[in-house]
């Protein structure tokens, strides 16, 4: 059979991408392996040892907790923080984008808070408030700012002629807001969610390290490090990476679908 690569064929393109991704991952594992050989220390396990520890973690969990409950513990904190950020940032962003005066008033407050790394809040919230709400608030902070700035940006970027069109079709202020400004801002909201989810996932791991009551991946990580269970530590790092990739993939997929639906491609 004579195979000729055709860049206009989506299956060919997909196949090519898969091949390159596979090569990249193989290369990654190879480099890891070589580095761990060179390092020659039990702090840096090779891929095989890590894989073994990963299987062990998946089957047996850690510290009397099943792997599913550990992952779910982190995931539920993550979801709660995310929902909280959504509930606060969406209306706030819409109003701040809508009202110039309000925006000018609130912007300085936001700009003072924004540069503080979300992880810096972790000990403050966790020791200062409590162990269960603290980590949620850390995730909240991480997701809140990218979400808010994207929504404000989206509302500001609204095509003025769409608003004029709505008004001349008889829409009142509320209808302009609900039927024009909100839909226009949705693709930007999705972009904010995409960025926010990435940051949020980093926050949850960091926050859990401070929280002795939530037995999530962050807790496992610090506990395993303290007990020198290095292959398990690397296995957890892989779990964290996969969870992060999954959340961003899902949000990227949703973002594309919604952008298409909203007519912005």
């Amino acid at each position, binding site marked *: 059979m004579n195979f000729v690569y055709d860049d206009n064929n989506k299956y060919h393109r997909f196949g090519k991408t898969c091949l390159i991704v596979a090569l990249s991952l193989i290369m990654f594992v190879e480099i890891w392996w070589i580095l761990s050989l060179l390092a020659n220390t039990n702090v840096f396990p090779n891929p095989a040892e890590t894989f073994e520890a990963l299987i062990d973690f998946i089957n047996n969990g850690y510290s009397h907790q099943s792997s599913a409950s550990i992952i779910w513990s982190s995931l539920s904190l993550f979801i709660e923080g995310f929902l909280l950020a959504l509930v606060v940032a969406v209306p706030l962003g819409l109003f701040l984008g809508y009202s110039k005066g309000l925006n000018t008033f609130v912007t300085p407050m936001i700009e003072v808070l924004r540069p503080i790394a979300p992880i810096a809040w972790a000990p403050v919230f966790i020791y200062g408030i409590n162990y269960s709400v603290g980590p949620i608030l850390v995730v909240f902070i991480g997701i809140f700012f990218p979400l808010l700035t994207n929504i404000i940006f989206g509302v500001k970027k609204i095509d003025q002629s769409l608003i004029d069109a709505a008004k001349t*079709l008889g829409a009142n202020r509320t209808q302009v807001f609900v039927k024009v400004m909100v839909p226009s801002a949705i693709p930007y909201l999705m972009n904010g969610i995409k960025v926010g989810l990435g940051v949020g996932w980093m926050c949850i791991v960091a926050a859990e390290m401070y929280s002795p009551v939530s037995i999530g991946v962050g807790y496992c990580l610090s506990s395993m490090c303290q007990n020198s269970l290095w292959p398990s530590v690397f296995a957890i790092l892989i779990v964290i990476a996969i969870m992060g990739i999954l959340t961003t993939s899902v949000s990227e997929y949703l973002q594309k679908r919604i952008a298409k639906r909203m*007519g912005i491609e």
Partner: protein
Amino acid sequence: MSAETIEEGKDFIVIDNIRKVYKKDDTETVAIDQFDLTIKKGELISLIGPSGCGKTTILRMIAGLLEPTEGTITIAGKECKEPGADRGVVFQDFALFPWRSVRKNVEFGMEVAGVPKDERRERADEYIELVGLGDFKNSKIQELSGGMKQRVGIARALVNHPDVILMDEPFGALDAQTRNIMQNQLVQILEKTEQTIIFITHSVDEALFLSDRVVILSKRPSRIKEIVEIPWERPRDRAGPEFTALRKRILEDLEKENVMFHH
């Protein structure tokens, strides 16, 4: 006096001594000055003038999207202070809602007015058919060509039965051939609806082809240079001797003013 009681051909829209000054920091731009015009019910009146002379400004003031600095604009005795569904607008850049289908775009005005769903759909479909987009009711806006988009814009304005439709260079973004097709279609639609239309253009040809009257504006600040009555039957022959002679005469007059026009 209400819009319904005014007969066709009677004074309907009265623009009375309008002045519009744009102020920004220290600069003042007088866009319109001492502008008077009376528009009859059921007429298609074109405003033609050089770019930047204030045509859009006049239209936006009638639409209620902009407030005059001085003077008043009334429709059937009612002052146009705010935008409303009684004055439909067709925009040069279409201004369609990209997240709504063709039908949902046309339904927008009825939706905000609280028209029940079935009636909304029925009326929207009727006007989508009227503009020749029957096969595209559920299409997305991005799937349409420029000419089709503007037909959606026209259907969206017509379906609300406004007192007047304001069109700001509606075919300006279209290629020459599509523009001719759209002009012909607009003439056909007009015969079915008796709609009052204020039409802005910078094409003498387009103005002569469509209008009952053509208002020729001077450079900024806009004054009315001349109003030309065009009593000819429609559809008009662009190549006919009357048509070409009048076009030539108007273009020459405008050139004397040293103003560039598109043909």
